């Protein structure tokens, strides 16, 4: 019985002592602040979430709460365009919580978008180690590899991503097919374009991609036929001129010239002029080609140099002229 008052006293002292050592009441306050941060973040008020963070950290919250707060803060920095702060924060958070793949993932996304794919790739790999079927990380890794030129590796991850999506994401399929065009993998381009046509049948892009795969193999007549089908879906200038170019490369300069002339009838068009100029040049009508090649040089710096080469202009002079 004599011990009871002592015990009661110890219990009374124990409450503030425990709060002092373990931050109990402070934890509650921090928990409230974290909930407010979460709600501000969810409501799209990132500035409010970031404003609360200072008060939140002053409460010396436990590790799990800090971890969650870093997540909200990082994404809020991203949303408000402070990418440098987001990067610093994610790096710090990754050092403290290396198992949390959210930080790896967000950091990798920023690196990919900022042109640092070599930094993004290992982070995406970490995410995939923890969650091998994460579609966004798989796509992110494919993009990181593609940007560095590792198109063989990119193919593996693009392939896995579109399978995980059951070939239902037309954007991912288009990106994959363009990457395979870049790799010169014609069979895969055609296969993925076919899957894309099932996912988004009204888009002309699949016919365009397939046409490019055929042109890459020198099958220009087949490519022209596909572009004509694409033009039925979308009568775009770019498609018409690409068709004209395939006609020219396929050895049909007169038909290419006709196609270019119909564009020129609608108004000045440097690329159409270049096509007509090249067609005339190939027909050995160099005098007539001259003015069209000259006009075609306006299509861009490369067209400018091609025009100069066909006009027989000295290389140094052409370099100067085309820089201007």
């Amino acid at each position, binding site marked *: 019985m004599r011990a009871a008052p002592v015990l009661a006293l110890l219990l009374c002292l124990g409450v503030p002592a425990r709060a002092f050592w373990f931050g109990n009441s402070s934890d509650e306050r921090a928990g409230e602040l974290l909930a407010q941060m979460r709600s501000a973040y969810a409501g799209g008020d990132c500035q409010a979430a970031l404003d609360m963070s200072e008060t939140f950290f002053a409460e010396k919250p436990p590790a799990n709460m800090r971890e969650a707060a870093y997540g909200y803060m990082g994404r809020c920095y991203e949303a408000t365009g402070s*990418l440098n702060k987001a990067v610093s924060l994610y790096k710090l958070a990754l050092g403290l919580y290396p198992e949390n793949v959210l930080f790896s993932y967000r950091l990798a996304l920023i690196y990919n978008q900022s042109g640092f794919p070599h930094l993004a790739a290992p982070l995406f790999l970490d995410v995939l180690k923890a969650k091998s079927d994460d579609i966004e990380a798989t796509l992110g890794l494919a993009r990181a590899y593609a940007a*560095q030129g590792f198109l063989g590796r990119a193919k593996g991850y693009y392939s896995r991503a579109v399978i995980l999506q059951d070939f239902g994401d037309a954007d991912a399929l288009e990106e994959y097919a363009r990457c395979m065009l870049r790799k010169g993998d014609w069979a895969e381009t055609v296969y993925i374009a076919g899957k894309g046509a099932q996912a988004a049948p009204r888009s002309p892009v699949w016919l365009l991609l397939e046409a490019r795969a055929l042109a*890459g193999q020198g099958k220009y007549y087949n490519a022209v036929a596909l572009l004509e089908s694409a033009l039925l879906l979308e009568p775009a200038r770019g498609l018409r001129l690409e068709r004209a170019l395939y006609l020219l490369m396929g050895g049909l300069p007169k038909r290419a010239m006709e196609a270019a002339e119909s564009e020129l009838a609608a108004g000045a068009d440097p690329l159409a002029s270049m096509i007509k100029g090249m067609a005339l040049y190939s027909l050995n009508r160099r005098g007539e080609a001259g003015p069209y090649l000259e006009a075609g040089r306006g299509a861009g710096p490369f067209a400018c140099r091609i025009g100069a080469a066909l006009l027989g202009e000295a290389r140094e002079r052409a370099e100067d002229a085309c820089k201007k």
Partner: protein
Amino acid sequence: MRFFSLIISAVLLAPACARSQEPAGGDDALLRDVMWTRLATSRPPARPSVGLALSGGGARGFAHTGVLEALEYAGFPVDYVAGTSMGAVIGAIYASGQPVEQLWAFGRDADKHKFVRDFKSIRMLPLLFADKLISPTYITRFIEDRLGGLTFEKLKKPMACTAMDIRTGEKVLFTDGPLDIAVRASVNIPGIFAPVQYRQRYLVDGGVVDNVPVDAARGLGADWVLASVMENTLDKNPETVLMTLLQVIDIRGSLLSRESEKSADFLVRTQVGDITVADFDRCVEAGESGLTEAYRRTDAAREALLIYSAPRLVEKL
């Protein structure tokens, strides 16, 4: 501020497989890409013939493998190959028709290959006491295993490789005869390995006289030459006599390269960081650097070749 530069870089660096209805770059890129399909599917004389000049560089020379892979992606036509030292090894395997994947496999296993022992076994003191140059048993075996029995005449693409006659200082250009002997001579480090005796000559590494064999590629018949060279950022003192010797040869090769590079029509210069000529355990790293750099420069290379080719290409449509 640091990240502003990140963002600016992001804008400047076009994504590799960017999504858009047209090629990034609009009409200009469309014209380039379509013209390229014609060039890539033509053969000389409908287009100019293309040569590759692969420089020396020891383990760093493995960067050529990545360059070859990027050129394959782009459908870059290669009609002739010329190589010096490691460029001769890579070039010979490539010209024999073995796929680039085979070269990567060699790079992945390079540190396991016994030829690394030829380097590791070099001890300067015994070398000085015995006053006898080493015979690189494993390097010889490695080359014989891959190229033995092949001749220049049997290659899928015409090839040249360079060596130097240690007695006269003459450059020796191989374009015919047994391939393994020529390649062995081209990688033969002077002062360490015994000269290869062949056709009354005493042959050592061609990097000492012609590190970037652009002229050799032209001599084979190339109208237009793409050269692949490496650049490192080594700035440390070599710690052994061997490394000092290798570094001297390397510096000499680099100085020679600068002159030869000027005569190339297009140059892919891969930064290989601190990889040394003897870092055979870092071959893949060098190869990946080569791939990234060549991929980055692919459009520029295609444009340069197209501009050079335009009159002939359009005339022959």
